[in-house]
């Protein structure tokens, strides 16, 4: 745990002139970049074309090129058809709250599971991981019935009132997705790579367990936090089946349900491409910023002994 140098793998030999090997590697990177980006390029380019042309261009390289009648018509169309800003805002709020709570609650549990001694934790860990196995689609319907039985406290005219049923709310889109076995597992794995001596020293200094978690372990866990943030954000941003089952008011709908607005008898593919491009950009921005953050945090923390 000496190295603080930001240089990632393969230090040492660093030839001035690009060797054939390096050129080959760079070529591979570029080829892969093309492979991973071509459908996205198609999506972006098509978002500026009229429907008929999208399908006319489909047979050749023109599908990837901004040629023909280009316009912002599809984007104007999107805003006429869908309250896009409202949906984006909803998704942003829902995803941000879920991500924040998810990081806190799951890392807390992972801390107890990986760094503390208590009876039954092996069983709890196994049970937690078992919850990963059932795909959401298969139990969504009983879940609707179930969340509709749950009580909620609401402020009405200055008084707290108990209401029944969570349908058509923000919380029904947030709370069910906070506890997540995958994230507990990820934090658990990561926390185990942090030396335990740190805890022991802190205990001797009289720190509470929560203090150790909050002031020692979490600050060292930048990479895990960033990874979980990205992994938690994606499915929330892509929520589709659940909101369409539990949300009735347009004001509360998230972005992915908006896609359905475009599938009419004759879908407007140009608008679908435009809307898809619009909802992809925020996620990409988030990834780029977190990606930086977590690479930096690793370089500076020099974790692992």
């Amino acid at each position, binding site marked *: 745990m000496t190295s603080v140098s930001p240089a990632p793998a393969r230090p040492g030999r660093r030839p001035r002139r690009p060797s054939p090997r390096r050129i080959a590697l760079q070529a591979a990177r570029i080829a892969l970049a093309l492979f991973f980006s071509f459908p996205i390029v*198609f999506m972006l380019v098509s978002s500026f074309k009229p429907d008929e042309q999208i399908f006319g261009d*489909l047979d050749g390289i023109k599908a990837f090129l901004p040629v023909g009648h280009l316009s912002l018509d599809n984007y104007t169309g999107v805003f006429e058809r869908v309250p896009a800003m409202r949906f984006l805002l909803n998704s942003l709020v829902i995803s941000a709250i879920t991500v924040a709570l998810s990081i806190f609650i799951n890392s*807390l549990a992972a801390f107890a599971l990986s760094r503390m001694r208590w009876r039954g934790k092996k069983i709890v860990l196994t049970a937690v991981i078992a919850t990963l196995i059932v795909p959401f*689609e298969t139990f969504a319907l009983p879940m609707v019935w179930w969340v509709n039985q749950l009580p909620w406290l609401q402020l009405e005219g200055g008084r707290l009132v108990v209401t029944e049923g969570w349908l058509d709310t923000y919380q029904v889109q947030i709370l069910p997705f906070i*506890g997540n076995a995958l994230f507990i597992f990820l934090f658990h794995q990561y926390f185990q*790579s942090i030396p335990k001596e740190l805890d022991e020293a802190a205990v001797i200094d009289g720190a509470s367990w929560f203090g150790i978690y909050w002031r020692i372990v979490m600050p060292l866990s930048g990479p895990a936090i960033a990874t979980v943030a990205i992994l938690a954000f994606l499915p929330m941003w892509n929520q589709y089946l659940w909101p369409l089952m539990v949300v009735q008011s347009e004001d509360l709908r998230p972005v992915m349900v908006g896609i359905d607005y475009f599938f009419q008898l004759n879908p407007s593919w140009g608008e679908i491409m435009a809307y898809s491009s619009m909802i992809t950009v925020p996620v990409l921005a988030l990834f780029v910023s977190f990606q930086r953050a977590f690479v930096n945090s690793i370089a500076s923390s020099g974790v692992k*002994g």
Partner: protein
Amino acid sequence: MTTTMPKRSSPPPAAAVTPARRTSRMRARRRESIAALGMVSPAVFLLVMFIVIPVVLTFALAFTNARLISPTPARFTGLQNFRTLLDDPLFYKSLRNTFSFATVVVPLQGGLALVLALLVNAKVKGVNFFRTVYFLPVVTSMVVVSILWTLLYQKTGLVNEFISHLTLGQVQGPDWLTNPSTAMPAIIVMSVWQGVGFHMVIWLAGLQTIPQDLYEAADMDGATRWVRFRHVTWPGLKATRTFVLITITINAFALFTQVAVMTQGGPLDATSTVVYQAVRTGYSQQQTGYASAISLVFFVLVLAVSLVQRFLTREKD
């Protein structure tokens, strides 16, 4: 899983411990247990509320004739749904498709993701750009991605156009999604393409936790790249490996969206998967009880597979 859990500290020689110290340590131990429970319980509570209870409700329905829409309440029918399931040829096909999908995708996606991670873990110009581009498909919704690839996979679509150019017109690609022998491979390629960036990020995180000094030591010994990978990188990725294995496996078993958008389980059931069958049965066909039975059987099977997987990975440790 790497259970490096602290061994229960063996009792120290009795003589060395005074009664006073022992009670204080017991008190500390109890405080630790209580604190641990307090820290685990929010997550456990949420998991119980929003996964365990709905799942158990679902499984309970497997023993009834519940329908999605029905004028009469569901009746308990015992094992009837399971007997029907055993005679359902589509269920066996779906099982086979699901398992073969997982068998191919897990090593393919995990391996390719590692290659990508190694490629962008170098200190070269534009790594951040490449990382972002490789991650692009992950941030695009699966529904959108599936629609895009459906267009690409057409007989006269871009994939075949590309193949034709590459082989100077010698090879004409098939209509990928309507041919029973190419539909599943087509979905596999697309799924790997979509998901591999996700696991690249996980591998990257793992790579970054490998201490530099190990590489420096290896370099000083004059190790070749392969030796360095084999003896430093690979062992250093042990924890990450388990994580990647588990997440890809679980995602692979849950294969649904791609199938629903691209092939609806066809052609000739070549891409029908268990989750797709459960959803189709439960929603479109309104047979909630039967769909629950499919889910329950599937849960048991996947649980068995993961236990075996865990057992195997543990033995090697």
